[in-house]
Each structure stands twice: as C-alpha cells, then as structure tokens.
C-alpha cells in the first residue's frame, strides 16, 4: 500500500468526530465508552447432536420435508433436553427478536444450505413467536443460485445478501483481523442462527460453522493464507459476531469430502443428517472428523497429509479465543 494518500486526514477526522458527536447525542460519553461486552464462558462440556435419517431423501436430489422437520426437531430436543421442539426453540430465541439465518450458498444449489431446512427452521421460529426472520449470506446472487427467493423488504421473512445493506463503516478488530461487519448482522438482527454446510475446503481444510462467518465480513479474501489460521478464529471473535450467534445447525444432508468449496458432485455423499450445537468449535471438530473418515474410506490422504489440516479449529479453542471445546473428551456427541 503506497504512502500516497487521497485525503485521509480530513476523512478520518470527520468520521471520528462524527462518532464522538453521535455518542454524545445518543448516550453521552458513558454510553460511548460502555460498549464492552462480556461473553459467556465455554461450558466444561459441549453437547453436539447428530440427527440422521437414512430415508431423508425422497429422490436422490430432493429431501422429504416432513422427515427433515422431524430430524431438526429431534436434534433441538436432544440438544436442549426438552420434550417438545418449541420448548427447545424458546431456549434459543425470544419473541420480538429479529432472528438472522446465516446460510452458506457459495457453491450454489449443489451443496448449499438447503432451502427445505431453512423453511423448517423458519416454521419453528414462527411457532416460537418470532415474527421477523432474515435469511442472509454474502450476495443476492449467491442466494439466488441456491434457489432462495430475494425479498428485501416487508415484514415476516426477508432474504437478501450483504450487498443490499452493505457493511458497517467502522472496523471491528480482533487479533490479526480488521474487518467491516455486515449491517444485516450488526444493525438488523438481534440474534443469528448459523446454518453452514459440511464440506472440504481447498485452502482451509474444511468449511463448516466457524468459517461460514467469513460471509459476514467485507474482506474474507484477506484471510485465506496459512490455512486460514488464526483468521477464522479471529473473525468469530469480532464482538458483533460473537455476541449474536447463538446456535449452529449444520446442513449435512449432502456432504463433500474433496474439491470444496466449489460443488464437485463426484466428491459428495449423502450423509442425510444435521449436526447441531451451541459450540462451533465442537461442531467443526466433529464435522472435520466425519470428513476425514470419509476420505480414509475412499482412500484419500488426510488433510494433514494434504497440508491443509484445519488448525484454526484448535486455535478457536485456545486461551485467546475460548470459542468452544476442541478436546473430544469434552464434547458429548449425542446421536438421535
């Protein structure tokens, strides 16, 4: 980056001055300074539910919606020790909140968060008293390629990419990351449910819950060096992201063990399940092991041997991040 500037000083002054003025007008200095957030400690043991159904597919390429809802309900009840799915959902969201559903549509219809799953989540959220739901990802075009219908305005369920509202103007910073966070997350949503997919990634090793949050920042291209470590962990530590993401529901109806993040149908397999947890580290660790197991089954080298072991997952659990449990001894996997 050359030293030649194009007016930075004045712009910076105006921006900073504006921030001070805004703070004074809205909450005074106390409010401006009092924005530090404390986060819940990592539980001693994380629970992760794997909910599968061998008959989930009505055809090789389509899902049986009623079985998918059943799969989701079983997972939510098992995760929260509840007798009914609504009781479980009410432990995640509160009526009146605007709930964002972060989907992953980069690979298009072939291997994205399935709209059928998103529909099931929306249905349960609405039954739990949520009126405003926003389905979002990087771009409108990504969502459309995964067969989501763009709805930018109105009440009820909206669906749009970050290119509609753009990004915050002030950098969010943690560790090695400095990024602008999508306004959809920071300004529209009160809570976010992350709905990633289970797949291999040619640079990061795997892309599941943690890496899906690259879709919430303006500059993910800067963070694909060094197997995305520590960048994935750092992005998940950005205050707006850490504060709002409450639950991770990984769509593993179709999983991909090689060739990601693009859709490579010959390297996918029907896992026919969901991985659900409040702990993204536990989920990513478990999902990674599923992918490794599949690679071994088909005679492929491990991700370590391929020099793309997803070390960012353990980084996310270290003392600087504490985003969840990485040690399998502290991850209770419940299969339903």
């Amino acid at each position, binding site marked *: *980056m050359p*030293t030649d*500037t*194009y007016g930075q000083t004045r*712009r910076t002054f*105006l921006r900073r*001055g504006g921030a001070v003025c805004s703070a004074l007008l809205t909450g005074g200095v106390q409010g401006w300074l009092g924005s530090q957030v404390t986060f819940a400690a990592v539980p001693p043991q994380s629970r992760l539910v794997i909910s599968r159904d061998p008959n989930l597919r009505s055809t090789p390429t389509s899902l049986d919606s009623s079985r998918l809802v059943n799969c989701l309900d079983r997972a939510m009840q098992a995760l929260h020790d509840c007798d009914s799915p609504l009781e479980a959902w009410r432990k995640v969201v509160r009526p009146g909140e605007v709930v964002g559903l972060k989907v992953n549509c980069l690979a298009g219809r072939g291997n994205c968060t399935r709209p059928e799953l998103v529909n099931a989540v929306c249905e349960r959220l609405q039954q739990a008293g949520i009126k405003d739901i926003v389905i979002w990802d990087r771009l409108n075009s990504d969502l459309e390629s995964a067969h989501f219908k763009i709805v930018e305005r109105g009440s009820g369920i909206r669906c749009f990419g970050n290119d509609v509202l753009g990004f915050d103007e002030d950098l969010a910073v943690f560790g090695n990351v*400095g990024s602008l966070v999508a306004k959809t997350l920071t300004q529209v949503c009160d809570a976010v449910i992350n709905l990633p997919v289970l797949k291999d990634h040619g640079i990061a090793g795997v892309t599941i819950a943690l890496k899906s949050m690259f879709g919430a920042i303006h500059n993910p291209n800067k963070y694909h060096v060094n197997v995305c470590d520590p960048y994935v962990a750092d992005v998940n530590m950005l205050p707006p992201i850490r504060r709002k993401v409450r639950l991770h529901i990984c769509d593993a109806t179709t999983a991909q063990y090689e060739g990601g993040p693009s859709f*490579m149908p010959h390297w996918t397999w029907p896992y026919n399940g969901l991985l659900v947890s409040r702990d993204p580290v536990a989920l990513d660790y478990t999902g990674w092991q599923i992918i490794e197991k599949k690679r071994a089954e088909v005679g492929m080298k491990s991700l370590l041997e391929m020099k793309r072991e997803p070390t960012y997952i353990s980084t996310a659990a270290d003392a600087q991040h504490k985003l969840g449990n990485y040690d399998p001894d502290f991850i209770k996997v419940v299969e339903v």
Partner: protein
Amino acid sequence: MATKYDLRLLEAEPPAESAGLAWDRRSFLKAASLPCLAACAAAAMGGRNAVPLFAAPLAEDDSQFVKEARFYDKQPYRKIKCKLCPRGCAIDDRERGYCGVRENRGGTYYTLVHSRVVTAHIDPIEKKPLFHFLPGTVAFSIAAAGCNVNCKMCQNWDISQVRPEQVRSNYAPPERVAVLAQQNNCPTVAYTYSEPVVFYEYVADTAEAAHRLGVKSVVITGGYIQQEPLEKLCRQVDAIKVDLKGYSEKFYKEVVNGELKPVLDGLVTIRKHGVWNEIVYLVIPTLNDSESEFEGLAKWVKSELGPDVPVHFTRFHPEYLLKNLPPTPVETLERAKAIADAEGLHYVYIGNVPGHPAENTYCPKCRKIVVERTGYTVGTVHIHNNKCQYCQQPIPGVWRS
C-alpha cells in the same frame, strides 16, 4: 450484482494543497451522513474548485468493468492459478484471489476493476513522492479498489482493502483518462493510492492510451509482483515508485502480509529495464526502525541498484491496525538518512515532515541545492541539461527541458 453507478463529480486538487485537506466525494458523502458535522463539511466543500472529471454512464451491473485477466493458468475442475503476484493464488470457481478484485468465473479469470476508478485527483508529483521525475508538475492520479497485501499501517485501507462493489466507482476507460490528463495539463498519469498491480490490465491499457497523447505514466506500488508481468509493465510506463515497506522477511510476514524477496527482485528488474525508480521506506516506530535495517537497506540499494536511486524515509502516522503506535520521531528519520548517507547513497530524503531541509535535492558533488522543496511545493530548480548548474555534475532523473 445490482450496484448502480451514478454521475459523480470528483474534485481536482490544487497542486499546492496539502494531502491533509484533500478529499473526494465519497469521503464527503460519508461525512455528511453524520448530522452533527454535515454543516461543517458542506461549508468546507463549497470552498473548493470542483470540476467534472468523469461523466459515468449509469450501469445496471458491473459488466463494463469486467475483462479477462492476464497472467493466469487454467487448471482442472474450473480452477485457476493466478500468476500476477508472488502470492500465486489458486482459486476455485466463483471465488476471488487475495486481492479481492480478480474472480474465477467458470474457469476463466477476470479482472473486475478495468476502468473502475474509485478516486481521482490532480496531485503534485512530489506527493507520490517522485522527486526526480518532472518536479513541479502535477499528475492525474487514479486508483481502483483492491490490494495484494494487507499492511497494518495502510493509509488508504478503505479503498485498498475492499472489494470493488463495496465502494462507489466511476467508469473511466483508458482513452478518457488520457484525454482528461492532457486537458488538465498533467504530463503524467499516476496509478496510485491503492495497489496498481491488482488493476494491472487497466494500467497497461491506460499507459498505452496516454502515450499516444504524449502523456507519461508513473506507477506507485508496493512492488509485490511476479517477474513476467513486471517486465512487461516496465516496457509500458515511465517511472515506478516502490514502497519498500521494511527490510526483513519478518516484517513483511507480520505487518505487510507479503514477502520481501520478490520486492527486492522486482527493484533489480526495474533498474535493469532502465525505468526511473525511487524508493520509499515508511519508518514505523519499533517495527522497522532499527539501525541494522537501515544499514541493510542502504547497503543493498547501493550494491544492487547503485547510489543514484532516491530513497525517501517517510514519517508514519497511526492508521488502520496500527493506531497504537506514535508518529515517527523526526530524529529517527534523520538517523536513517545519516546511515544511508554514510553508506554512500546520493539522494536520501525525509518525507512527511514539511519544511525539513532533507526535502531538497542536493548535488552530490558540490552539495548545493539543485531542487528546492517545501512540502509539495517546488521552488527553484538548478538543473540544466540534466546537470547541476553549479558544477555540471549529472543529476539522474527525468527533468523538464
């Protein structure tokens, strides 16, 4: 993508004005959204001599900016391997490289920033800084979004560290830029502010169009580029200023997110091709300000490039991800200059310290001032026929006849 591009006035910056007062419409719009300062901002804006530089046609998509990229290999499964910068990104379909402005679409690699200008100014050439290249003239200065490194001290991060669709842009094809430069009495077009390497195709095409009108081209770059594209670029532009951001691989890895060696190799290539070259070294307290780094840099420049390459030690101001550090003490810059002088470099400058005597150019033989400068303002030039007018010592550079 449904981004709309509207008509936009970009401001022509008076040559003598300091960088601190220069701002464009994007900055203005951003600031004006803050109600408590809007009135002040509007008042300040009204005092400037705004001229229409680009009349951009409205576009419903970004197709006018998309052209097939140069320097890449196609690979199986619609993947590509970029060969523009040393990073050598391997990119899947629908993904972009590290720079964020080059995208794989179905196995073909595209630049998204051809003719896509995010800011334009008419700057003194001294602001680049180029001190031995047509001093006292102005450069028609343009940038597109994106960069292939991510320096923690970046001063222009809000255009360099973003994707092109995240900032307002204007359509300015090469011929239009060349004509505008000529009409505004700019003998050069400068590709600057962000990182010209990542809008390489636009630079090359614009340089060609500008040359047809007798307008030169200068590139202001971090120099992180592969040899083949650099050698081709050297045949198309008239000067290259390289930001040598540090003199250790550790600094490049931890602060720049790049590598030192390709930049050094590139400097040698530029020298070999005879393109006018100057070096800037931004001195950052505690990170790249050791005497051993200054010595290493000066020795390397002298041995590999020769003593006549101007080296500018410039002052750091806290920005972006390095707001925790103080501005560089002037004494540190003077120490760097003293070390480089002692190593035998002939033209060592101190930058971002307006009024410092080390802004002037001194004849290495008679030690008299041959180019007087205060900030970006050039006083008397005592160079005739490329020689010191006092002692006839040749002064390297590109001087006005």
